[in-house]
């Protein structure tokens, strides 16, 4: 029989809050984590604003040894480890370096690319004929699975340990992969999540594609405008989110706190057919992904109370809402509430799905809808489909039972997962 899967721990490192408590408060109060960065201006970026979590040197030392921090220069691994360790502790486990190997817990922690600044350091040295002086830390910080290697060692996890990568759907995909592994009985627990580096070397390629907004450099907190008529591109973000998934049986046995249940999910690809490209989604496949997630979760479209969308603040937001309308066959007053977490934290790229899932689950647990910032001018195409009341712009208490979270990524890949409020 398939195991039921619940969430028993979470951790988050977001531009508007590091740690669950601070992030939850920011969600409730609608705090934007977007700032202007002079470095981006100096480098002649069109978009000079972004989201970077605030982490002091002292704070790092709560999570890493001095030796681990020697020559350490990978912001994604930093964020991923902090979120992962926090989630693990939140689930009631400790991170003692001498802990017994836990071979019933695995780890799927995704990212897009790892340690770009470390890689840059290495390239400069190497081009200077100094390959012998790179030291021992380049490989571990620049290999894509670096975050999983660090985390699994810190926590002593002995089940499957890997890293997935599917562009901006990475985090949501990691949750679904971990869910599947527990469902099939191959693991009792899976620490899942995703992280993304910050800074110009990750964001530059997007700036060059002109997909980031250049219109809000003087007013950064207004920059990330999902669902808005004046949305003019996304604001780049960074950080990490982590969740401890656990079989319901194991969670009950341990008397663990249960945040919510994962009902199921689906991933697919549009194959860059039927309008899909490397950068644009095949809408038919997006809808199919949502429908499959419902089917696998045995949930009716009518049961969904809220959607936490991908909604990046590009011209594709209207297309996404249209896809939800068609996939759920619901529109107008009948449409679920919409949640655009990126309005507060920007687009955290590979980390987006995990951070936004943490945001989703906090809202389910505390029964509220976080405000959608910067959409006072709802896009007319979206307004045609969905009434204003479905897009709350201020903190709203609401009984919520089922939430659908979707993420989409370059390469025409899709992921959709369904969370349900857990009642003992």
């Amino acid at each position, binding site marked *: 029989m398939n195991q039921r899967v619940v969430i028993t721990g979470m951790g988050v490192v977001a531009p508007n809050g590091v740690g669950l408590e601070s992030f939850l408060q920011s969600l409730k109060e609608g705090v934007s984590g977007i700032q202007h960065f002079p470095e981006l201006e100096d480098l002649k970026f069109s978009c000079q604003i972004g989201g970077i979590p605030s982490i002091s040197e002292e704070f790092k030392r709560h999570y890493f040894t001095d*030796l681990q921090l*020697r*020559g350490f220069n990978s912001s994604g691994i930093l964020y991923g480890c902090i979120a992962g360790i926090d989630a693990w502790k939140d689930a009631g486990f400790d991170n003692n370096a001498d802990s017994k190997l836990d071979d019933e817990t695995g780890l799927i922690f995704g990212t897009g690319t790892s340690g770009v600044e470390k890689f840059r350091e290495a390239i400069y040295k190497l081009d200077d004929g100094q390959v012998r*002086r790179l*030291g*021992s830390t380049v490989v571990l910080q620049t290999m894509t699975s670096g975050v999983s290697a660090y985390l699994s060692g810190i926590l002593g996890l002995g089940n499957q340990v890997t890293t997935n990568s599917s562009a901006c759907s990475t985090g949501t995909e990691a949750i679904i992969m971990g869910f599947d592994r527990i469902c099939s009985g191959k693991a009792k627990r899976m620490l899942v999540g995703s992280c993304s580096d910050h800074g110009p070397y990750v964001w530059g390629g997007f700036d060059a594609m002109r997909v980031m907004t250049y219109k809000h450099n003087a007013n950064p907190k207004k920059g990330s405008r999902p669902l808005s008529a004046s949305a003019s591109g996304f604001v780049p973000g960074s950080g990490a989110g982590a969740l401890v998934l656990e079989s319901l049986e194991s969670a009950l046995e341990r008397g663990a706190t249960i945040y919510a249940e994962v009902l199921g999910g689906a991933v697919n690809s549009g194959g860059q057919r039927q309008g899909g490209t490397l950068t644009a989604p095949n809408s038919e496949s997006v809808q199919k992904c949502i429908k499959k997630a419902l089917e696998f979760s045995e949930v009716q479209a009518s049961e969904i109370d809220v959607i936490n969308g991908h909604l990046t603040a590009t011209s594709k937001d209207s297309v996404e809402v249209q896809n939800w309308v068609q996939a759920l066959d619901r529109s107008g007053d009948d449409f679920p509430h919409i949640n655009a977490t990126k309005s507060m934290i920007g687009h955290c790229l590979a980390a987006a799905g995990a951070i936004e899932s943490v945001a989703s689950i906090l809202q389910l647990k505390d029964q509220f809808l976080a405000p959608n910032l910067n959409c006072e001018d709802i896009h007319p195409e979206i307004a045609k489909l969905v009434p204003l009341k479905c897009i709350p712009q201020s903190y709203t208490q609401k009984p919520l039972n089922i939430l659908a979270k979707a993420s989409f990524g370059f390469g025409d890949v899709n992921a959709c997962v369904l969370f349900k409020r857990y009642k003992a």
Partner: protein
Amino acid sequence: MNKDELIAKLKPIIEPYIQDEAAFKNLSEDTDFVKDLKINSANLVDIILDIEDAFDIRLENEDMEQMMDVKSAMSIVKSKLEA
């Protein structure tokens, strides 16, 4: 540079990488980097680089292969300084 001075200069270079405090406190010429100090073998290359910087010498691959304990490190550093 005599033996004691050399050890005194090597100790702080090695310290960040050690995993066994007690063995480090009792460090002598016979102390083995991996067996006694429990240094992760991957970190041996970092120690080599730090020694290069501190003594302004260059250690070749062949030198590195031999530097498994304090004694061999001292003798190699000494020979480089005298060269």
